[in-house]
């Protein structure tokens, strides 16, 4: 390899062809000595934990609003209030009476769709649940057995995974939801006799901030708000928003994906605990 050759006497370059024989250790052999399986395991536990909690919260259909208390806290899992029986002072119709069905089941479709098609969560569950691949330089599950169940791979080119391309539409809806949760945070400062602040108000504000940080850091947002522009010099406002707001948030998208997910569950739990009388919400002023 290190011997210099006189190339002037060599014939014309030989065309190269795709092919050849793979060498080295077999792909099925994992040579990484580190605990590469820890990260996918943590993601599986984290996401499954949220799914279990969210399922319980969605089917609970009770204690999602601090009814009969001098507080105006509405669980983010049940926001906006879309049923006529909703006890809050602000009802977003016209879903009307949907019987015993929990309104959360209708509401959560949209945030769920947004997160399921999110580029970060895709990476997380493709690695952790699909094992495709489970970790870098670790073979796709099933790919080392020719003709096996998972020997073929089509990525996001076929149904249903081609539907990941609708992510931007879920983002449009997610912006509306972020606005609604911001409004809920504003209402959480509404106390009998005027403005006040409880621990719940603080929790609602953090929830709204994290939801905005996650929503505005979304890759689809980054494209729609400026990344898709060919000439930034012709779109200076979009360029500034892309560079100064969306891109910095996008670089921490994983952080905000997890923190907003955990915090929204915590906000729901807090409302449940206060509404069910389990704990008392301290008022700061």
């Amino acid at each position, binding site marked *: *390899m290190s011997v210099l050759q006189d190339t002037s006497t060599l014939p014309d370059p030989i065309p*190269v*062809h*795709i*092919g*050849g*024989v*793979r*060498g*080295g*250790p077999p*792909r099925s052999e*994992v*040579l*990484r*000595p*580190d605990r590469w399986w820890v990260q996918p395991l943590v993601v599986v536990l984290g996401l499954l934990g949220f799914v279990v909690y969210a399922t319980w919260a969605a089917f609970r259909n009770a204690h999602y609003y601090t009814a009969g208390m001098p507080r105006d806290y509405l669980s983010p899992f049940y926001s906006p209030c879309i049923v006529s029986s909703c006890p809050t002072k602000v009802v977003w119709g016209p879903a009307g009476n949907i019987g015993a069905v929990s309104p959360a089941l209708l509401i959560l479709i949209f945030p769920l769709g947004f997160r399921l098609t999110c*580029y970060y969560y*895709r*990476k997380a569950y*493709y*690695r952790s649940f699909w094992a*495709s*691949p489970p970790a*870098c*330089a670790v*073979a*796709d599950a099933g*790919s*080392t057995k020719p003709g096996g169940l998972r020997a*073929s*791979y*089509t*990525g*996001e*080119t076929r149904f249903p*995974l*081609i539907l990941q*391309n*609708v*992510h*931007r539409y879920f983002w449009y809806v997610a912006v509306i939801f972020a606005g609604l949760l911001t409004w809920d945070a504003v209402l959480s400062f509404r106390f009998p006799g005027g403005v006040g602040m409880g621990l719940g108000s603080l929790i609602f504000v953090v929830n709204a901030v994290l939801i905005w940080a996650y929503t505005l850091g979304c*890759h*689809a947002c*980054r*494209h*729609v708000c400026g*990344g*898709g522009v*060919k*000439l*930034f*010099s012709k779109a200076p406002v979009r*360029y500034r928003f892309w560079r100064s707001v969306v891109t910095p948030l*996008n*670089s921490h998208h994983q952080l905000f994906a997890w923190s907003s997910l955990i915090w929204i569950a915590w906000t729901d739990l807090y409302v449940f605990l206060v509404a069910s009388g389990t704990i008392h919400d301290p008022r700061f002023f």
Partner: protein
Amino acid sequence: MMPIDTEPGTGGQPLPAEHKEPPSSRVPAEIVMKLWRGDAGGGEFVEYRLPAEEGEVVLDVVHRIQAHDAPDLAVRWNCKAGKCGSCSAEINGRPRLMCMTRMSTLPPGEPITISPMRGFPIMRDLVTDVSYNFEVAKQIPALRPGPKPPEGYRMAQIDIDRGQEFRKCIECFLCQNVCHVIRDHEEHKAHYAGPRFFVRLAELEMHPLDTLDRRAYIRERMGIGLCNITKCCTEVCPEDIHITDNAIIPLKERVVDAAFDPIAWLGRKIRRRPSPMSASEVAALGAAARSEASGGG
């Protein structure tokens, strides 16, 4: 004058804090290195033991083995400075440049395995045939600027800033090697560009002077839908190019504009914008440009 930590072969440039040499106590007295020896017919790991030396990178140790114990060892290298992209290999199972991997960053006292990149055909020992990448490179339609204005081409700084990151690529092909579409699914090699060439395509698509619309081509011929954005390419890039976030996902979103977004389609109709160029049209223009460049007419 304060002493400055420098990376071997960086021309004396100061090191970032996280890359500074750890205490020398981390370097054990003896190195146990297992090198893959073999060719297309098969092979095995061969163990070499040699005394440790201060401040070495993996390639230094491989060279010492080559000089003393295994003069027939095949290893590709050139600059020893992380700029030529020749010495790509898998160190303890992770794709890395041998010249940029300090011995002191590897687990002390444990055997170190060095194997060839598993994504490409083997030639011998640590050397692989990466010509697949050059085949793909030929399929990328080149920059196609519009007619040259009388005053010459002009570009605003903010329009070219975005592409600078992509030009850092040293073509080490570690990203191609770690990409599981190439590595684990040989059947897609013929119609899948891979991360390195998505970076190239992103650079072209974002170029302020370029007039080609490669979106249909990227979807149909370059196979971007096969990428499931698991970010391993970004993790292994020695130039710290944010391949997934800044190249692949923006390309995927551009493809959505062209192929999957009815609002974008409606917007094009209302504003009388041209439809996306077809993949075959782009391929024909690319082939014509190649032919012209090579003097074939």
